């Protein structure tokens, strides 16, 4: 997505070493999916309108829409990033940090007292 994190191929440990683009795409997408889950969980809890929208399956209620939407966002981002980075070497450190921050935020946002505080 962000072209600035892409760099020219660098020397790696061995000629057979794979470029890191696929792994980076999977990791960043997992971070985005986790963050999306946290944001949608809070949104579904706070807004009566969204609660109705997220009720994809009535017996499960808004949880069905919140989790399905987060999974769709995760898979879409994974596919898009994989397509973009599959043959590239990207800035692994920066992407890992971004992904872990998104994961931490997702984890925090699912905690009900935090969601109630917002």
């Amino acid at each position, binding site marked *: 997505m962000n072209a600035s994190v892409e760099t020219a191929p660098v020397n790696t440990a061995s000629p057979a070493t794979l470029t890191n683009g696929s792994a980076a795409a999977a990791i960043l997408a*997992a971070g985005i999916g986790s963050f999306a889950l946290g944001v949608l969980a809070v949104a579904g809890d706070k807004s009566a309108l969204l609660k109705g929208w997220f009720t994809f399956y009535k017996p499960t209620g808004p949880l069905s829409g919140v989790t399905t939407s987060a999974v769709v966002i995760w898979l879409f981002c994974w596919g898009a990033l994989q397509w973009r980075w599959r043959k590239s070497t990207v800035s692994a450190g920066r992407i890992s940090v971004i992904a872990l921050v998104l994961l931490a935020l997702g984890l925090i946002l699912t905690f009900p007292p935090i969601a109630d505080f917002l």
Partner: protein
Amino acid sequence: MEITVRSLWTLIHGFGFGALYLLACSGGILELYRSTSSPSPSPLTPRHEIFLRVYLITMVVLAWGAVLSGAYIVYPWYRAVPPAGAASSLLYPQHLLMSSPSTIGWHSLGMEWKEHVSWLAPISITMAAYVFIRYGRDLRNHRQLRAAVLSFALVSFVAAGVAGFFGAMINKNAPVQGGHTIQLSRNVEALGK
């Protein structure tokens, strides 16, 4: 000895998928760490690599099985609203928990957290399995990505632990009950009398 269909599904969700995933997680994370961080050139044999791939795929299936069976089979029974004038709340666990100040927290904190945080487990472990299957022993050449994969796997374990703990406690305070009864065995002694 008998069990209701709802209790059986709760067992499948909690023990069949959830607890088994937690058990697999501890071994999986350790093995991921060991297999991808050793400084020696190639301690991971092809056979070992195949074993770890199958192990991780099994973990992915268990994690998705746990959240999907929870959200679409057990949770609807948990959150069912009792009809007006229902004599008992025993078949409506959420209602039962919320009817007392001493148990309301199991729903407002426990279930509210569990129902969302548990989904971090399959997302994280699916990513970890994909990266390991794609890179295998080569992952040791990508130190930062390896650290990120292990962190996600660890969060997956924590998320599953939170979900497992609250699931067990909620089911202890307000078990999901009802549905058809399955006869597991007959009490021979009682029949003989």
